[in-house]
């Protein structure tokens, strides 16, 4: 492995150098290296821990499960995706909406910010329990948990972004007697977009994990439910399969947000 690292290091140090080997090998190594290390540790754990196969199954068994149970997994994956996506949208509507409200009517900030911080710091487990009692096992209750977990980084980043608009540009808008909406959409919002997109890196990836956690507690659908069921039936392979899917999904969301960020970023 040290040999592989020695090859990877110069590629990192001189990223601008045009070399076909590096161009093809760099990204490949970046994927292979962590995957190889994880697999190595996995096998090491199997060999040394002495734990039974339903607690720590072999990687190839997990892959088999992924293939064999693909329809089952896909159904629950879609259910989780729906909860995560709706929750993320709700988190953004709430986060951006509150930030705009706080920014345009400063007194609302001192009024509502303590509530936002409190909500942010309530353990999700307690929230899920209360929502379960209040509205039962519905998509709405899970979406609400995801939204509550995700709105705060969006709120904080949007507030920061709205204040980031250059003062000379705001003077320019004032001298032209531009209205609130004109100034907001032409100057302040564009300055807020990069931090709003950056917030998605937190809110987006956590939406998957929080959706799974909520499903684990209350649902009869989704990847969280699959984990719960697998635990009860000693299907460690399914638990690991879900973990793989969730990790992959988080990486995809992260990559998508990065692309989105590049697309929307006027500084590029």
């Amino acid at each position, binding site marked *: 492995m040290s040999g592989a690292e020695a090859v990877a290091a110069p590629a990192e140090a001189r990223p601008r150098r045009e070399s076909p080997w590096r161009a093809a090998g760099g990204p490949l190594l970046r994927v292979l290296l962590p995957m190889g290390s994880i697999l190595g540790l996995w096998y090491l754990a199997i060999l040394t821990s002495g734990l039974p196969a339903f607690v720590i199954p072999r990687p190839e068994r997990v892959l088999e499960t992924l293939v064999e149970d693909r329809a089952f997994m896909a159904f629950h994956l879609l259910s989780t995706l729906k909860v995560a996506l709706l929750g993320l949208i709700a988190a953004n509507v709430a986060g951006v909406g509150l930030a705009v409200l706080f920014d345009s009517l400063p007194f609302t900030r001192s009024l509502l910010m303590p509530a936002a911080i409190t909500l942010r710091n309530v353990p999700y487990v307690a929230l899920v329990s209360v929502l379960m009692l209040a509205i039962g096992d519905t998509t709405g209750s899970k979406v609400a948990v995801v939204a509550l977990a995700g709105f705060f980084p969006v709120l904080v980043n949007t507030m920061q972004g709205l204040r980031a608009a*250059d003062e*000379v540009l705001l003077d*320019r*808008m*004032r*001298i*032209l*007697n531009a209205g609130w909406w004109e100034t907001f959409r*032409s100057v302040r919002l564009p300055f807020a977009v990069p931090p709003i997109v950056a917030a998605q890196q937190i809110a987006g990836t956590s939406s998957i994990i929080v959706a799974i956690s909520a499903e684990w507690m209350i649902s009869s659908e989704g990847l969280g439910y699959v984990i719960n069921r697998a635990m009860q039936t000693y299907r460690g392979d399914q638990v690991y399969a879900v973990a793989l899917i969730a990790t992959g999904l988080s990486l995809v969301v992260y990559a998508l947000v990065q692309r989105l960020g590049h697309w929307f970023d*006027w500084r590029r």
Partner: protein
Amino acid sequence: MAAPVSIRGVSRRFGESLALMPTSLEIAAGEFVALIGPSGCGKTTLLRIVADLQSPSAGEVRIGDDTAGQARRKRLLGLVSQRPAVLPWKTAAADVAFTQRVAGRVGYPAAGLLREFGLGGHEGKRPAELSGGMLQRVNIASAIAHDPAVLLMDEPFSALDEMKREEMGIWFDRELARRPKTVLFVTHHIDEAVLLADRLVVFSPAPGRVLDVIRVPVPRPRDPGFRRDPRFLETAAHVRRLLFGAEAVA
């Protein structure tokens, strides 16, 4: 389009401290007046009061028959600051057009304006792709695109290097001959003020008080050689004496 500006007993305090002593000044339509003085003398404060970006503690400003607020709401004012107030994501042409859209008035068509500002061929470039001097010209083009009657300039050339600064001054002097405006120009650069202005208002250190109003005895636009003219040198020396005392010039 140009309008007279009347500053009547305008003063400004910030909390306990007085930033600007009561100041009165009559500026004719099309006149170029430089406000010069040490840092913190209240010249920028006075400019911002005329711009209706700050309110005076006492006194009032009239632009033509309007108050500063009415003039701003009628979009009769243009503002040029030291840092270019251009939108980083807009091209030069789009930035100029943006002023016109917000002001609801096309004073000077964008393409012609940029061409005359020496920016032909650069209309499609964004701020990051332009040099400092070009960027400041885009900034000025955007500030006057809606044909304001009064142009308020706060050290517009001070971020440029010495050579560029002089070049810009000479260019701007010519430009104003084509598009007359009443100009209020804040600077702490004596030569620049004498080169460009019809009159110089010299301020004392804080709290700002008008020490003297000096007329430059040569009409605008001026020849670049004016800097070596005895009248230029004498006026600049007079301003130096006012600002730094007699020994500084001797």
